[in-house]
Each structure stands twice: as C-alpha cells, then as structure tokens.
C-alpha cells in the first residue's frame, strides 16, 4: 500500500508538472469486470432487459408528432439513415451554440422543434428510451469523441469537474475511477466509470438509466448535492467521460450492477 501510494503521488506530481490532460491509464469497459452470468445477460438480446427500452424508444421514434411527422420522416425507418459513426462521436460541438451538446439533448431538441411534441424532460423515461434506441444503432462502433481543437477547452472543464472534491465525503470521481478501478468497494468492483454502455440497464434499480442519472447516484453516495439534468456542468462531465473512453466499443444497452 505504501509503495502504491508513493507511485500514485509520483504520478500525480508528474501529471501536474507536465500538464498532461488525457486519462493515461489503459481504458477498459466495465464489461470486463462483470460476472460471467451478467456478461451472458448483456450479450443475449432476449435476456438483456435493456432491450425493452430499445423497443420502447423505437416506438417513440416512429410515433407521429403534432407537426405531422415523426423521427422516421427524416431519419428513415428504424433510424436507418442515421450514421452510427456520427452517433459514436457524441457529445459533439453544436454548430449554433458553439458549445458541446449531448446525444440526449440533441434528441430532446429535435423532439420539441421538428416533431413538435413539446418538451420532454431530460432523463425522463421517454427521453432515456429515445436515447437508448438511437445509441443502440451504434452498438459495436468505437467511441470517437472530439477532444482537441474547439472541443479541448470544454473537455478540460469536464475533467476539472470529474476531479473536483464534492460532498460531505469530500470525494472526486477520479479518486476511485482513475486510481482504483478493479478493486473492491465492499462487495462491488469499482469500474473506470466508462460511459460506453450508456444508457445502461442497472440490475440494482431494474431500469435503464442515462449517464447523468448515474453521476447523480454517485453524488448521492458521497453526500453531494445532486445536479440538475441537462445542466452545463453535466454536459461537460458527460463530454469528458465519453472522451476519456475513446476507443471503447459502444455496448448500449449494457447490463451493469
């Protein structure tokens, strides 16, 4: 433990000196930490309970809205005109606002503006179902978020939030998920907190949840104030967390404890 602490301190010092910003450890999906039976559950669409949410999302995707069109009007039956490689790039830079936008926020905007169905609440069951359906179209694609150029400053801001101590327990995401992934927190194996499986089916809550709900669950654990969904801070964190997992394959809907 002493040696390990010394290494961690050394690594922290080195990264502070070099201003290195990317998450340097080898990235791995939380899938690799699952029990065999959970892996089998995820891999088999008939057993993967997240698939119910994909089906629900598909129905919403083709449901006619007040503007006389559905998502399929532009994106094709079953979203076949959507580019899976583009889906794998989210969060992307929004050309209008010049700020990052998450996949769910993009869908919510379209839902209100194009389909004309009025606003859906961020992380509501329908919003998560739509996102799960769309992201599932990119299953097997490699996460490929832009983290350089115009996105670099936003990525850095997201990283700062990921590494900011919050709550009564005064903890930050990176303290567990960068430094202790694979180790046991009581009965639970800590993951790297990767988002390649999101929205994901959580066995603990028997529901599919989005990235931001998962962050709030961690915030609650460290007794921090839960943040509003779709907020600027959560958008930046989601950007960082996705970019940090660049290279991982999308598993939506993943199955996790």
């Amino acid at each position, binding site marked *: 433990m002493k040696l390990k602490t010394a290494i961690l301190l050394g690594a922290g010092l080195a990264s502070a000196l070099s201003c290195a910003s990317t998450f340097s450890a080898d990235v791995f999906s939380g899938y690799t930490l699952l029990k065999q039976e959970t892996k089998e559950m995820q891999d088999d669409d008939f057993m993967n309970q997240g698939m119910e949410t994909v089906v629900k999302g598909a129905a919403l995707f083709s449901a006619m809205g007040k503007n006389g069109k559905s998502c399929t009007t532009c994106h094709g039956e079953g979203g076949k005109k959507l580019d899976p490689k583009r889906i794998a790039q989210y969060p992307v830079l929004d050309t209008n606002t010049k700020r990052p936008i998450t996949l769910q926020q993009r869908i919510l905007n379209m839902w209100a503006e194009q389909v004309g169905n009025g606003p859906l609440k961020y992380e509501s069951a329908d919003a998560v179902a739509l996102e799960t359906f769309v992201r599932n179209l990119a299953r097997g694609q490699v996460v490929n978020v832009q983290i350089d150029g115009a996105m670099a400053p936003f990525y850095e801001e997201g990283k700062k939030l990921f590494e900011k101590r*919050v709550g009564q327990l005064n903890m930050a995401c990176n303290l567990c998920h960068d430094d202790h992934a694979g180790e046991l927190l009581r009965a639970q194996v800590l993951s790297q907190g990767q988002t390649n499986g999101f929205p994901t089916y959580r066995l603990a809550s028997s529901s599919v949840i989005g990235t931001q709900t998962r962050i709030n669950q961690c915030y609650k654990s460290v007794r921090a104030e839960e943040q509003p969904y779709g907020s600027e801070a959560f958008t930046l964190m989601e950007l960082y967390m996705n970019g940090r997992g660049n290279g991982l394959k999308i598993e939506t809907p993943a199955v996790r404890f």
Partner: protein
Amino acid sequence: MRRMLLILTTVFASLPIVAAADDAPPIEAYQQWTAKGHAIQEPLGGLKGDVARGRKLSIDSAKGNCLACHRLPIPEEEFHGELGPSLVKIGKKYDEGKMRLRIVNIQELLPSSLMPPMYMNPAELTEVAKKFHGHTVLTAQEVEDVVAYLMTLK
C-alpha cells in the same frame, strides 16, 4: 502539508447544540482540533471513546463505514473492501494521536487520499447535500469511539 505543521488554536468550546431545519438531526458544534507531528494528541472535546460502539460504527454504512474500503477482524460481516490498507493490526502501527488524525482527516497528511475525512470542518466542504449541511461524517464522540476500537486491533 504546511497546514499540518501549524499549531492550531485548540478551542474545545462548549457551545450549545444548534437545532437544524426539517427532520435533520441537531447540528453539533464543530470542535477545532490541533494537528502536530502527524497526530492529534488530545481527544476531540476531551471525550472518552467506547470500544464496542466504535466497532459498530466501523460496520455501519451510514456512519464510519470502514468496511467499505478496509479489512477488519469482523468475521460476521461479508465483503470487506480493499481500496485502503488492512486495519486488522492497525493498533500496532499507530499510537492514539496518529490514529485520531488519520480518522479525522487523512488529507492533512496525504492531500491526494480518497479516504473521506470523518471530521472535517463542514464550512470547508463544497456542494454538500442539504440534509448533511453543517454535519461532520462522525460526531466528536463517534470519532473517539472509532479511535478506541481501532487501538484494540493488535
């Protein structure tokens, strides 16, 4: 690190207990403590710890929750965490003062530690959930109970 070397003023003020809003438990006045030589020699508030209570607090996930990250000689509980060092013989390693500082706030010694400070000044914390505003994780008495328990692990 520099802060640790400073001798802080010890104020064991016997302030009245302040009632908190809603259903939250009353907020206990925060006891200032002095860190010197990697240790807090004086018991918080001059209180005396209780070994049996300390053992219970170490298990309680809403309290000390030591088991989340540490191995302890508590065989009736399954799944001891492994994020921190084993505490099975921790009483041999530290004297009471050093043990107290590590429980109160290990970040005074190791700024990058992930261990939650059990007795950090609530005013120095950020974005704390409303129901925990003004509270330390453990009360001064509970810190002393856990110190007393861990000192028996030899």
